[in-house]
């Protein structure tokens, strides 16, 4: 790694809850995502196969959470990390899944900046998010740990 000039982290936003953001799930986005991560199960592409497996429509692979969470997580990360984004790496990630997500669902995600701290010259930004479907059922709960180098 190149030596980067030290840049203090801003901890003032710890505890911020960001505006919830919606994502309308389309079958085409699910199959595009499934292609990109090599998920071959036809339930991610074919509505009939999905229905035969007990889903109401084409179902998302679990990790599609990154797609429907993006409208909430993008602005939250930008607000908390901003100019330091080029120094950001992803440190850790946890997802706890509940209801499956299918084409036709509208998913609402709300993010909180749970914790900001500095350790060993790195800044840690820990976000928590909860996503629910249009019926109010939880689909995923997530913890996103982002690390900023050179603080």
């Amino acid at each position, binding site marked *: 790694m190149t030596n980067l000039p030290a840049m203090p982290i801003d901890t003032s936003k710890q505890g911020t809850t960001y505006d919830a953001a919606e994502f309308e799930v389309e079958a085409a986005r699910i199959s595009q995502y499934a292609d990109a991560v*090599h*998920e071959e199960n036809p339930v991610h592409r074919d509505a009939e196969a999905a229905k035969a497996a007990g889903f109401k429509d084409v179902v998302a692979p679990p990790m599609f959470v990154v797609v429907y969470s993006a409208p909430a997580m*993008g602005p939250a990360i930008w607000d908390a990390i901003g100019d330091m984004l080029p120094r950001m790496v992803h440190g*850790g*990630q946890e997802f706890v*899944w509940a209801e499956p997500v299918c084409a036709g669902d509208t998913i609402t995600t709300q993010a909180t900046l749970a914790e900001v701290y500095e350790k060993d010259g790195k800044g840690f930004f820990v976000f928590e998010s909860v996503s629910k479907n249009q019926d109010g059922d939880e689909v995923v709960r997530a913890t996103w740990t982002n690390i900023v180098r050179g603080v």
Partner: protein
Amino acid sequence: MQTGDSIPEVKITPDAGLTKRYAEASGDPNPIHVDEEFAKNVGLPGCILHGLYSMAQVARANTAAAGGDPRSLKRLAVQFRGMGFPEQEITVTGTVKEERKGRIVVDTVAEQNGNGIIRNAEAELEPV
């Protein structure tokens, strides 16, 4: 799946265009994954894989081990370690650690050329 059993290994070599396709599919605009020059300017050896793409390979291996139904993956927690690169084979391996509250807990690792890119990954499975 019994404690101590290995899950079936998953091997995948992301091609040179993968990071661009993943960036479009996931909506992650970070140029360190798709712009070689930008990546080098921020001190990286070149474009790196998205950590969440590598995590998706860990998710895929665990879902497949549970029989392939996407509902069977209940929880996945990972730590990203080291960088993953396009055009190098990723190997995902896992071992059943225990049964916890009716769920099968699998410790999983993703490696490239012997370097761990995902470590301490813990999956909880409930085969459908």
